């Protein structure tokens, strides 16, 4: 998970490695995600998130689609892969 100074830099970086880029997330949007995701991290009573809750957090800041789906399709009832 890296920073790029522009989307052009991101695309050039991906071309240089022959990889397909994921979504480019602007810094203000990353901040909104960070506040929701990590804002209660130091609270000992903060519960672990379910996959549904994690998916809702991503969607709540505009991160939707299969890239942001925290549960692999082969594990519909598995642990949330995005819990951290």
């Amino acid at each position, binding site marked *: 998970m*890296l920073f790029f100074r522009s989307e052009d830099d991101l695309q050039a970086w991906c071309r240089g490695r022959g990889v397909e880029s994921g979504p480019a997330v602007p*810094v203000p949007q990353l901040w909104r995600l960070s506040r929701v995701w*990590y804002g209660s*991290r130091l609270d000992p009573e903060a519960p672990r998130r379910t996959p549904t809750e994690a998916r809702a957090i991503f969607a709540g800041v505009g991160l939707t689609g299969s890239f942001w789906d925290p549960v692999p*399709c082969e594990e519909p009832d598995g642990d949330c*892969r995005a819990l*951290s």
Partner: protein
Amino acid sequence: MTFATRVRTAILEVFAETGIAPSPAGVAERLGSEVEPVLEAWDRLREGRAIVSGEDGVSIRMANPFSGIPTEHTFESAGVRYYANCAWDALGIPAALGRGGTVGSRCAHSGEPLRLEVADDGPEPCGWVFHSLVPAAHWWDDIGFT
């Protein structure tokens, strides 16, 4: 609160206070406990992905958003330098601490340094972007790579 949760909380508190990963002995002392139950909790926290251990199996490499080893992604605040596991966590640390400071990183393509001031209500205007190569469903397949 379970003992493992107390250990997890203590780990995060030490990171927040010092920017440095605690040892099991340090956490035991903080909790007034023997080391052995702390080590047992360590295992449960690792299995639950609350921490990621270093190669020695004991030191803490990650307790998201904090990194136990130096990285290129940093946050400095109140005289403390914190290391983040990734670009996201560089903003995750001020979000977790609830206070402002300065994020440091670089553009992965150009190498241009990033120095981003973060106030209590968020970062200053910035046109940079964040990118994850790995889809969310596979972040924990190899969390070090992610």
